[in-house]
């Protein structure tokens, strides 16, 4: 009952990525002897729902709060309120435009997506048409992964043409239909990048149903994606370290609540994985089902 307690407000909770973050956070909670709660809105568009969650979290007077901001500015008044109440904030997944958070544990999404672009270019021979099935048009990760990928292609690979960027909301079925339509409209397509787990699975599904041969690059992890890579349907994917994000967020939060100093920036890293390295222990450790 009297265990200190850390509230994590994430960007979502139903998706595998966030469940992996939660798993890491829970593990840290168990290791460090704190209770952890984890909450997030249904979609990454619901900025105000997240604000309401943050507000309820502050009312509970936790030892510290971990916060993955859907918008870099919208929550600032509440963060100030938390600061006044003496609740330290640790930002995770993406930062906020404020120096209130004592630390930020995040992946560099732009760099991660640029790596996906390089891999794509390598696999299709640096020329031809490709498409992007993104998960979101307006969320931070959606924008960063799309732009990281698209800009890298534009800068470094002039012979590659991105014919279509469409958004499936991370919904597997919708992403499937989008992929099929793009393939129908562009029979000579050479590659598709799916920007998160749901999108990537949708791309794999759509390609499989149409029986096309295109190079697929995914993002994040999950059982179907791992299977698709093993089966050779997907060339490879970028994974972050969600378990690490969750763990390090809670770790930093606990430290901050005790008044200890923490690193301002915690880079949790990202990795390329494909058939060749998927079973290596250092990769297997950052993958999740």
């Amino acid at each position, binding site marked *: 009952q009297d265990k200190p307690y850390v509230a994590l407000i994430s960007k979502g909770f139903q998706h595998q990525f966030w469940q992996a973050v939660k798993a890491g956070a829970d593990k840290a909670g168990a290791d460090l002897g704190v209770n952890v709660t984890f909450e997030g809105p249904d979609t990454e568009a619901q900025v105000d729902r997240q604000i309401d969650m943050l507000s309820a979290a502050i009312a509970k007077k936790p030892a510290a709060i971990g916060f993955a901001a859907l918008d870099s500015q919208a929550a600032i008044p509440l963060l100030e309120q938390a600061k006044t109440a003496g609740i330290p904030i640790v930002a995770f997944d993406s930062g906020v435009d404020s120096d209130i958070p004592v630390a930020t544990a995040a992946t560099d999404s732009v760099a991660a997506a640029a790596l996906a672009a390089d891999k794509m270019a390598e696999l299709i021979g640096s020329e031809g048409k490709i498409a992007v099935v993104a998960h979101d048009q307006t969320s931070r990760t959606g924008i960063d992964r799309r732009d990281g990928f698209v800009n890298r292609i534009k800068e470094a690979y002039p012979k590659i043409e991105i014919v279509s960027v469409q958004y499936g909301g991370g919904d597997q079925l919708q992403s499937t239909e989008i992929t*099929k339509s793009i393939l129908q409209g*562009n029979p000579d397509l050479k590659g598709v990048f799916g920007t998160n787990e*749901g999108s990537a699975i949708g791309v794999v599904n759509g390609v499989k149903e149409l029986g096309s041969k295109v190079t697929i690059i995914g993002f994040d992890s999950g*059982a179907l994606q791992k299977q698709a890579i093993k089966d050779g349907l997907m060339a490879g994917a970028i994974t972050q370290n969600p378990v690490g994000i969750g763990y390090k967020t809670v770790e930093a939060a606990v430290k901050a609540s005790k008044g200890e100093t923490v690193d301002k920036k915690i880079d949790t890293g990202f990795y390329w994985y494909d058939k060749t390295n998927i079973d290596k222990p250092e990769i297997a450790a950052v993958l999740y089902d």
Partner: protein
Amino acid sequence: MSDNFLAGLIGKSQGAGGARYKLLAFGSLILLFVVFSLASPNFLQTSNILAILQATSVNGVLAIAATVVIITGGIDLSVGTLMTFCAVIAGVVLTFLGLPLPLGIAGAILAGAGAGFVTGNIVARLRIPPFIATLGMMLILKGLSLVISGTRPIYFNGTPGFTSISQGSIVGTVIPAVPVPNGVLVLFAVAIVISLVLTRTALGRYTFALGSNEEAVRLSGVNTRGWKVAVYTLAGAICGIAGLLIASRLNSAQPALGQGYELDAIAAVVIGGTSLAGGSGTILGTLIGALIISVLANGLRIMSVPQEWQTVITGTIIILAVYIDMLRNRNAS
């Protein structure tokens, strides 16, 4: 008699007098086909037409479930999450318990019927307005799907035949040129069966009667509560079929999916000419409504229209589609 069935399938079934078959939005569907065919050479290809049909299968089946409820004058917001719930139950039966495929199929459909039975009782016996009852069920089923699955997808890798429920093609083995996916066959089978139920059986008759004037039906000595429960149970069972289709298509039960699907389903119903006030409606209309939604999405994507404009255009065309066909019908009569 077959005349009556046809009326049910195509016309504003009850009371249209068999003479005038007013098909809301059918003309618009044709128009969309023509426009997209001209706009992109890739649109009118067998593989794309099959893709459109495949894309219609899940929403089409959900829309059929919604149609039945809407004809009684109700509304069903829970079709999307009930679909997911049924997919999860199939996952529990097949993957967690490792039971054979037919039991998984039965499990999903029974789970749907069971949930529909609960909803029906909330509506008919507790007399909660259908909007609230199904909103509540929507949330309950959404939560339960996450709880039961442990907030993670359940995969069907251990059940080899499972993906062919939707993705296989019985037709393709006979006529290789037209590999119509099984999911599409399921959609048509459900459409025909439910059309027959609506036009030829006592359940169907009471469905329309309840939507027309429930009190008059009650005062005719009909057990209106019982029949209403039956209608919701039927709708639930149909959602179970949708759950199997989507799970088979994704080879997994995705517990987070489903919310939001009810809007597409109800939209298909209303575009198809069924009135939300109840008492009228056809399954064929609903199919056409569902097709319009898929054709629009597919065509705009094929043309690589930027997505924000896709949304604007879709909204406009939905309104226009209904308007054009209202004009057509008005002139015809």
